[in-house]
């Protein structure tokens, strides 16, 4: 955490200011001036030269210099093919230590003491380089695809650039990208979705869960025909981190006896509550849930069926719960819980 020095914090508490701390009004003014200056620069070389000058003058007069660094970086970020010298200037700023601090932007700002840099210069420099890099990688991908050069494709290690390219690729290009066999779950997910490739999707969902895999899973009901999606979501070898999400995603498939049966079959297992919530999303499942409650194949299935009715927000479901709560043949503790829901 980059904080003002301890002495500075104490000084702020006592109501004063300290070196490096500037009020918002002074910041606004410095940004305004820097924005005008940056806009007036005729070309990239001028902007790059200003970065160098501002970095030097930040030592003696940090506020205007840091405002200029930030605004200049934002202008440079728009460059299409920056010169090597410009790139070096920006790289020199990726570990820039801020000197101008303002009061904290956290949401409880009154508490005093904690301060934040007024300008995220290092972060903006990183963002600028990233933008340039990704644009270059996209260009390299396009070129490699045009040549059909698998080795060149594999050498481009930029998942975000890949995903962007996948989004716009032709069918032939997609197959080429698929052949490159990227290990990145986000790339594999994007390819699975665009190609409608069930085996690729299945592989992603059997590997340890990742945010990209969760995104793929959530997209399956719309991306695949329902019976295909059901097979993928109901895969017994699904990674455990995906199971709850998979059950819930089943509720977005076109309703069918097969889907209902898959969900009912899972009611008593470790992710049975997720089955219950999926079943609760369609009142057509009510009769089947009532049968579970009547037959009570096992305690867990019974509990999950009751939960499903609880979540169903349906008059018929509520009536079944009320009847359950009044049925002396049912376990007292469960009846008490159900009564609590109905209150």
């Amino acid at each position: 955490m980059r904080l003002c020095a301890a002495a500075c914090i104490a000084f702020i508490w006592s109501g004063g200011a300290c070196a490096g701390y500037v009020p918002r009004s002074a910041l606004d003014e410095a940004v305004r001036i820097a924005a005008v200056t940056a806009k007036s620069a005729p070309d990239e070389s001028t902007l790059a030269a200003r970065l160098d000058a501002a970095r030097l003058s930040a030592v003696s007069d940090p506020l205007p210099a840091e405002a200029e660094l930030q605004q200049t970086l934002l202008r440079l970020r728009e460059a299409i093919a920056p010169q090597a010298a410009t790139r070096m200037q920006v790289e020199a700023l990726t570990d820039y230590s801020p000197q101008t601090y303002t009061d904290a932007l956290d949401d409880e700002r009154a508490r005093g003491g904690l301060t934040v840099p007024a300008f995220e210069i290092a972060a903006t420099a990183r963002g600028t380089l990233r933008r340039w890099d990704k644009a270059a990688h996209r260009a390299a991908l396009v070129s490699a695809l045009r040549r059909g050069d698998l080795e060149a494709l594999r050498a481009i290690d930029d998942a975000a650039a890949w995903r962007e390219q996948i989004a716009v690729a032709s069918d032939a290009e997609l197959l080429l990208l698929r052949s490159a066999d990227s290990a990145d779950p986000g790339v594999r997910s994007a390819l699975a979705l665009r190609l409608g490739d069930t085996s690729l999707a299945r592989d992603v969902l059997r590997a340890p869960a990742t945010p990209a895999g969760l995104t793929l899973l959530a997209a399956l009901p719309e991306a695949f025909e329902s019976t295909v999606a059901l097979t993928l979501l109901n895969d017994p070898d699904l990674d455990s981190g995906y199971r709850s999400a998979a059950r819930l995603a089943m509720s977005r498939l076109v309703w069918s006896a097969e889907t209902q049966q898959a969900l009912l079959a899972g009611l008593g297992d470790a992710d049975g509550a997720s089955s219950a919530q999926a079943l609760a999303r369609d009142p057509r499942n009510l009769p089947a849930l009532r049968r579970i409650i009547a037959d009570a194949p096992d305690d867990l299935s019974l509990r999950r069926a009751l939960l499903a009715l609880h979540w169903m927000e349906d008059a018929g479901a509520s009536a079944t719960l009320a009847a359950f709560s009044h049925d002396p043949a049912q376990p007292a503790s469960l009846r008490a819980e159900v009564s609590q829901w109905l209150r």
Partner: protein
Amino acid sequence: MAALSRVTAALLFSVTATAAAQVLTLTEDSYGDTLVPLGYPVPLPVDSQTPVDGFRRYAALQARLDELALSSDSIREQTIGQTLAQRPITAVQLSDADALTAEGFAEPAALINGGIHAREWGSPEVVAALVEHYAERQNDGGLYRYLLDNLNLIVIPVLNVDGFLQTQRYPDTFLQTEYSGDPTPADLSAEPAEYRNYPRDGRFRRKNMRNVDETLCAAGSTGCVADGMLGVDLNRNNTHAFASGNQNSNASGSLVYHGVSAASEPEIQALYAAGNLGPAARLRLYVDTHTFSRVYYGVNTGRTRRDALARALAQRMSAATGGVDRYPYNPTPAGQGIGSTDERFAYDYQIPAYTLELEPSANGGSDYGSFGYHHDGFVLPASEIARVREEITAANTVGLYRMAGPPSLIAAQVRRVDSDLLVYDARWMRDGSTRALTQFGDGNLEPGVAYRLWLAFNKPMRWRDPQTQAITQFIGQSIDLAPQIALTGRDAGGAAFSFALATTAEGWRATPPGTSAGCLRYADDAYQVVFTLPTGSPAIEARRLQLAVTATDFTGQALDTNPATVADWAGGWANYEDDAGRADTDVGGSDRTLVLVDDGSSAAAGGSGGGGSVGLGSSLTLLLAAWLRRQRAQKSRGKPRLQ
């Protein structure tokens, strides 16, 4: 080179822009006039009941709590109120059914909430994780069973339900108003200037949904009801210091609008109702979980002992996240306030009360290499949340365990190893709201005979590595793992002596109660050591022989030196005596209450002995008679002595 994006300029406090408020979209690294690149994938709500590398959709999170409550007798849901949109606000109560500790005293309580500010998605995840952590371990026979039996924990994962749903409805879009381009409605004129270019609605909604519809739109666009600025800041709507301080506004469009009156909002009323489930008078800890800036904000109420204990506790909790300074403690000076929840609980109940701001640090998303959008700290990368859940669960566990109360030595036995013959038996038993000591036995220890000393405490004293089952420090804590135990007193000639027993950490007992040398109630609430007195030891035929026990709980709280008066909370620890017998120091000390051979010189040996003058309970005579019968039956070799 393309023209500088007007939007990005606006993000950096530019006053050159003149556009109206607009709806912007968060992206990973796509740039455009209405795009805000973060530098990492924009997390979308995940429809999963179980925790994932991401942020769960509200309905799934709530269903998860329903399921956990239905599957456990120690987890109950309580509806504590209704939002403005008539949605139930749910608290989860983690506690056994009675309101008593295992010993039978009134149970303490704690309240932990999340989701006051809608956009702070890390908060509900972290608070729900505590429920999940408890649920998984409810039958551990150790720490979590102890907490469930001895503390009434009330948890609210999402208080601002309507607002949270609004942020999940628009997970990657938000309304941002600009500094000078806005038509400034009259009721915004009083707002502090620095709030005016902040994002407001959609993903970045902070406040509740008072007078706000669910449509995200920019003022001036066709059909748009310009209500995106409205809502009440629930963390300014509290009864203490309402409408005070400079971080408040009475303008309804302000990000820090405090509402029409203190506790006017149903969410805050629900929070207080949850506190009353404690009941409120039994509360000992309050944590309101927010993001971001990685800090424990707190409140100094001006009560020195409470303020010092609140600081010490915050540091202990921070240590459990990876370092004492990882979440630094930052209290508001006494007498100041802004109407926040921690102020209300700190002042009304004089308990440690915190506004916990989760990570990232005040630098926001740049902690994770972001591109530096000024509010990106509210958008924790999905890949970070699992770790944050774990760290804060450890911190909360430390806070709950410590505030459940200081440790007391409440039972001891000495047995011969060869015959298992009980030669000394002591127990502090509940007697109304105090404890009474029953102890009896033969203090005549023989030389060259191995004895087993068993001590039991009123809480689990140690933590075991879940993998190896070895006694180890709880995360970030640093204590002596072995207790110090000595036989002290006066020898046959009247000279003072002290004989230290050799102790190691392996003496803590995890085997279940009822088994040979098991724990008393919970794993590691008991300790056992075998000792042999050498010939000529002053402890043989001692005129006075007593135990001196020095141990702390796993957060370093020392023993209550007088178990007779039961430690409780009263703006500081009450009845938590130190080595000098003082109950106003909050430090505790060594237990010297157990006397194997009594010469009547109550505190003669071993210093002042805080509990030395404890009276024996009236039930003692009956217990003694029963014990005498038992000992005769066991053909005890010595004459039993009443201590």
